[in-house]
């Protein structure tokens, strides 16, 4: 079995900052907006190098989304930066009318998504954002897994015409994908070959899925781990090909199981190949304060839970 290791942990938001910095140097049309969270979003370098192309809007996310929509009229490619909660739930109607329905080329970049935001608690830990964004017609939804992938995705979405929601997180997590990767929107990445169970994961749960696959391998279970960085459009072919071989699937995400990746996968399977599925995700709850590791353990969003669900779904074949 192919195994993955890492030499360092880095936060995915720093990958966003690095990608944005590179875009600042290579694409004159890229502009950035932030609602008083420059440091948290790691936008400092871009701002230092491109002060004229940065718009500090203050604590006013609704205005930020409208400004971004307006900036596209004139050929700019705006990247908005704030926490995931303030990037989605707070400004849903602004995104819906002025960005999605209006078909504007805005990149909504959202940090501190999910439980791993940690101690700030449920007011800031949005677990509904993937659902909110994937329901918007024409919106591309991406949830990256590590520093390198987040950097690559940030650069890639500038060349995609249309609105994008790019979701990443706060804590330092293992860096295990290649620094030189070519990020392809909508193209799933098969990380391990397996025949007994498919594990499709997104965001921080991808590494946990790889950890789970190692333990499962030791227990004689061959798991096929797929990194679904793009939740919409979903790589249906990759999922169907994998379950045609394994016959069962576990989906894993740092998000409510209602409205998340798991439901998108279930729709594909029910249409084309009904398959036993287990869901890793929060179960219709709000988060709470705690360390990221404590929260992921309490709400069952780690490799231990993935192993357990994999073993149980195999029995349902």
């Amino acid at each position, binding site marked *: 079995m192919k195994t993955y290791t890492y030499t360092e942990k880095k936060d995915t938001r720093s990958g966003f900052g690095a990608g944005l910095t590179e875009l600042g140097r290579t694409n004159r049309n890229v502009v950035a907006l932030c609602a008083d969270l420059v440091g948290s979003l790691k936008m400092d370098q871009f701002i230092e190098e491109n002060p004229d192309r940065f718009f500090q*809007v203050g604590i006013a996310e*609704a205005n930020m989304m409208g400004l971004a*929509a307006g900036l596209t009229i004139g050929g700019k490619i705006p990247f908005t930066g704030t926490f995931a909660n303030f990037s989605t739930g707070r400004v849903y109607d602004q995104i819906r009318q*002025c960005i999605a329905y209006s078909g504007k080329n805005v990149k909504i970049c959202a940090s501190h998504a999910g439980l791993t935001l940690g101690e700030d608690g449920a007011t800031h830990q949005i677990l509904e954002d993937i659902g909110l964004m994937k329901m918007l017609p024409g919106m591309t939804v991406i949830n990256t897994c590590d520093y390198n992938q987040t950097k690559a995705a940030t650069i890639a979405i500038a060349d995609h015409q249309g609105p994008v929601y790019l979701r990443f997180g706060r804590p330092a997590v293992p860096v295990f994908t290649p620094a030189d990767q070519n990020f392809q929107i909508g193209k799933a990445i098969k990380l391990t070959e397996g025949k007994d169970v498919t594990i499709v994961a997104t965001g921080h749960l991808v590494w946990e899925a790889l950890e789970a696959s190692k333990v499962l391998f030791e227990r004689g279970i061959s798991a096929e781990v797929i990194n679904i960085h793009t939740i919409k459009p979903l790589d249906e072919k990759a999922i169907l090909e994998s379950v045609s071989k394994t016959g069962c699937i576990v989906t894993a995400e740092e998000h409510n199981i209602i409205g998340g990746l798991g439901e998108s996968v279930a729709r594909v399977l029910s249409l084309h190949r009904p398959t036993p599925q287990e869901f890793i995700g929060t179960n219709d709850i709000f988060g709470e304060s705690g360390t990221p590791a404590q929260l992921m353990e309490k709400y069952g969003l780690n490799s231990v839970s993935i192993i357990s669900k994999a073993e149980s779904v195999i029995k349902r074949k």
Partner: protein
Amino acid sequence: MPSTQHLNDLTIQVRRDILRMVHKVNSGHPGGSLGCTEFLVALYNVIMTRKEGFNMDGIGEDLFFLSNGHISPAFYSVLARAGYFPIEELNTFRLINSRLQGHPTTHEGLPGVRIASGSLGQGMSVALGAAQAKKLNNDHHIIYSLHGDGELQEGQNWEAIMYASAKKVDNIIATVDLNGQQIDGSTDTVLPMGSIKEKFEAFGWIVFEIEEGNNMVAILKGMSEAKSKTGQGKPVCVLLKTVMGNGVDFMMHTHAWHGKAPNDEQLAIGLAQNPETLGDY
């Protein structure tokens, strides 16, 4: 510049279009549309520097954003009669498979529309974004926008109003249609807003008032003065005092026609008060 006679003829013809459009589908918003007719006619036929045809980016020309999207009948009529699309298409207003949706949208690709509006309070932010894109592009044209007065109850406006002066966005002229009416009644009964002029000034804007917002000469004079104040480090606001339903006597001075279409008899009365000038669609 078109003659005063032509502008008056166009205004009357747009009023007819509005009445006929909303009557045909028994829905839409005639009151605010009629109140802003003179302003939109002036904007598209005199005030704005426009290029031939329609390009979304609008580089090298003045742009207009309609925030109070429910006055789409007036907007569509003025756009069609300014050459953005055939006037016959006004026949499709609010019908299925039409580019003339109930509220303006870019989704169906209607030339002349650059943003969807209808959910209120969002247009000021979009206009400011477009204004800043113009500055980045070293494009010295002006962004115009129109907002309802009731619409100012939406908080996002005040985020945008605060931002505009803080960032010295001085290539925008935002006009507020001060007709004093909203769906549930007069703005003073629904949610009194005090002095809108003082509020804008307190937020650092240059404010002009056009007392006769349905008088073409007054509009042209006021907007010309407003334009002369752009480029001086401050955003510019025009408070346009209009009469809702202007030009159709039974629709004037009431909120009753905010979102109600005339019946056959009422249409006939309204059209008789505005005899055909440039030809119906």
